[in-house]
């Protein structure tokens, strides 16, 4: 596996990395919130169980104690109310960063997100704006069944006015979250919960690795941003391009190692705006492309990626773009590992695609 750091983009200066603390994804997210709240009084954090307790995944632990109940507090169980009030706060001039307990529970807030947050700047011609971040844990692999496993990113990328971000590691999670909070527009920040405590490559039957052993768990304590809209190449390769984000980046790297296929692995990091340049350059080079995600296939974000790749790289393509994704069914509880597009399913696709000509 090549060095992750080597090709990772960020604005923290080199020297900061010396003797840097190791953080899990949870700690990195918490640190991003902490840094943001410390720098800017307008940043407020709330959501279900987010205050005293610090969130069911503990991403906000200690923030109420540090910044007081006016800056970090428990919300009633109303995703609609959480996002609706946050839009009002953002319009007031605050920088709310709210948590929805699971992405599966974002639907009650969907109207506020789509009809309101996403369109406020547009419909008021810039008179009002909505600098709002909505964090939510996504993805499966924790035996959470159909209501603790969803990956609804495509429901956000279809909506003009939203930005959608999915980090794959602690370093990016912190940099991207700070960038999201500082962004002037609403950002959907999807946190692959299977990565919270360790890089997960889809091998559920092996012991979990800790983030501490992973290079990208070296996270500066202070402020830095990872720019929205920039992908990063996690592994350079010649045979095929894999487009992935979140958990699937690790699955991709695992499958590449296991199959020995010389694939280029691109971690998209931001789905919208998309770094089409990096994608197109890679596919132009490799001539083959696999799109990987955990969400259901039909109308998933993979459809958009596939469409873009064939639009922009048609004459380079030596095989159809393949999609390796979750099935078009709800996420089942017991059959979770038959549903999850893990390294073996991707491995098969890799072998298939390099043989196609």
């Amino acid at each position: 596996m090549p060095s992750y750091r080597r090709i990772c983009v960020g604005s923290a200066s080199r020297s900061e990395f010396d003797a840097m603390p190791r953080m899990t994804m949870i700690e990195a997210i918490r640190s991003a919130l902490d840094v943001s709240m410390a720098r800017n009084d307008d940043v407020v954090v709330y959501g279900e169980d987010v205050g005293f307790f610090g969130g069911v995944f503990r991403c906000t632990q200690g923030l109420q104690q540090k910044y007081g109940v006016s800056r970090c507090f428990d919300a009633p169980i109303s995703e609609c109310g959480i996002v609706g009030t946050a839009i009002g706060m953002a319009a007031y001039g605050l920088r709310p960063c709210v948590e929805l307990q699971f992405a599966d529970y974002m639907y009650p807030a969907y109207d506020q997100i789509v009809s309101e947050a996403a369109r406020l700047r547009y419909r008021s011609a810039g008179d009002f704006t909505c600098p709002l971040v909505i964090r939510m844990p996504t993805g499966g692999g924790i035996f959470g069944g159909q209501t603790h496993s969803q990956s609804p990113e495509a429901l956000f990328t279809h909506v003009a006015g939203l930005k959608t971000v999915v980090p794959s590691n602690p370093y990016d999670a912190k940099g991207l979250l700070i960038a999201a909070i500082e962004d002037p527009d609403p950002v959907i920040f999807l946190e692959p919960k299977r990565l919270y405590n360790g890089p997960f490559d889809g091998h559920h039957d092996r012991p979990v690795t800790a983030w501490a052993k992973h290079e990208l768990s070296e996270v500066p304590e202070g402020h830095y941003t990872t720019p929205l809209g920039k992908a990063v190449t996690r592994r350079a390769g010649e045979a095929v391009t894999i487009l992935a984000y979140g958990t699937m980046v690790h699955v991709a790297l695992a499958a590449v190692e296991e199959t020995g296929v010389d694939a280029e692995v691109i971690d998209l990091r931001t789905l919208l705006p998309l770094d089409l340049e990096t994608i197109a350059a890679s596919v132009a080079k490799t001539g083959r492309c696999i799109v990987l995600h955990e969400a259901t296939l039909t109308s998933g974000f993979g459809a958009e990626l596939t469409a873009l790749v064939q639009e922009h790289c048609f004459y380079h393509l030596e095989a159809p773009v393949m999609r390796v994704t979750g099935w078009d069914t709800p996420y089942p509880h017991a059959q979770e590992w038959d549903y999850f597009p893990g390294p073996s399913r991707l491995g098969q696709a890799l072998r298939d695609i390099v043989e196609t000509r």
Partner: protein
Amino acid sequence: MTSPTPLHFHVPEPASRPGGKPDFSGVSIPKAGSVRRPPVDVLPEEIRDLAYSIIRVLNHEGRAIGPWVPDLSQDELVAGLRHMMTLRTFDARMQMAQRQGKTSFYMQHTGEEAVSCAFRIALGPDDMNFPTYRQAGLLIAHDYPLVDMMCQIYSNEHDPLKGRQLPVMYSSKKHGFFSISGNLATQFVQAVGWAMASAIKRNHRIAAAWIGDGSTAESDFHAALVFASTYKAPVVLNVVNNQWAISTFQGIARGGSGTFAARGLGFGIPALRVDGNDYLATYAVAKWAIERARLNLGPTLIEYVTYRAGAHSTSDDPSAYRPKHESEEWPLGDPVIRLKQHLIAAGAWSEERHKQTEAEILATVIAAQKEAEAFGTLHSGGKPSARDIFEDVYAELPPHLRRQRQQIGV
């Protein structure tokens, strides 16, 4: 259990339908001056009855009586009358402009002018309204330029919203008027969030949320009440009950609750019901709730009892679903006429001055209209640019929108 008769399905029906006689016998109206005025720091549980009554100030003869008589000077009342008259004239001209094809759509306020005009006067300059499409009085009573309103309605080259929004969906931060959404009720909860922000920042600004009777059925109404109640947000929650939601009478949204004000009771939010066609009562009640909010005593729910005398919008014809002359039978009368009568009774106004003012206002509105039309109307003259389609989706134009804009070569 003994087998009872089978269940049956209950669907509320209005008192009368087209062809029938208008019937408001179900609307019980207390005498002007008869409802008590509690101190603003009263406990919600001590005024539950006010959610089922109607606070009124102007009596049949146009005299202002009782504890809710507000401290408005005659000049201020004359100004209020002018605001309402301006709104009505504005409505008439814009309705006609729509009929002439100068724009796609319009929504009138006829019969409800007092509500937004009086409320705006009670509010402070830094406060924020989250209005629906039927509160243009908030702009007119706050001296927002009529020309700008018209340019928005015409979607012309001077439209502050660059042609993007349906007519009447104004926005003006400077005038404490939040960008109107076409989606009902969504902004009711945003108002609460704005108010929470003001409290978090230890500011003095309060928010006013607006919603129609029919729209209280939406979920966001509930979310607003929950958050306002829990965080004691400095917000005034205004429900404009104009009896109709397009073709649907208020009983469908209200169900068995008796009133919309009653919705506040389940949240421990003080709830007042006021004669929405009585400028003085409306002002007084608004003032009371605004003071509560400003003193950090939390939210108040106000139900304005009024009547939508016109069609829902230019796309609607109410004769299909309610008796033709229902509006004439509306027992709370016409807010413009009632304030006019009050001022005349008080010796501060006359029929002549009224006529003269009418003419003056008409001239002003027509002048504004001419000015606005010089910037174009929906289908002719100056237009916002096709470029404007792509601006303001984000603060900065992202690459994919740049590509798309290039495709239409603008």
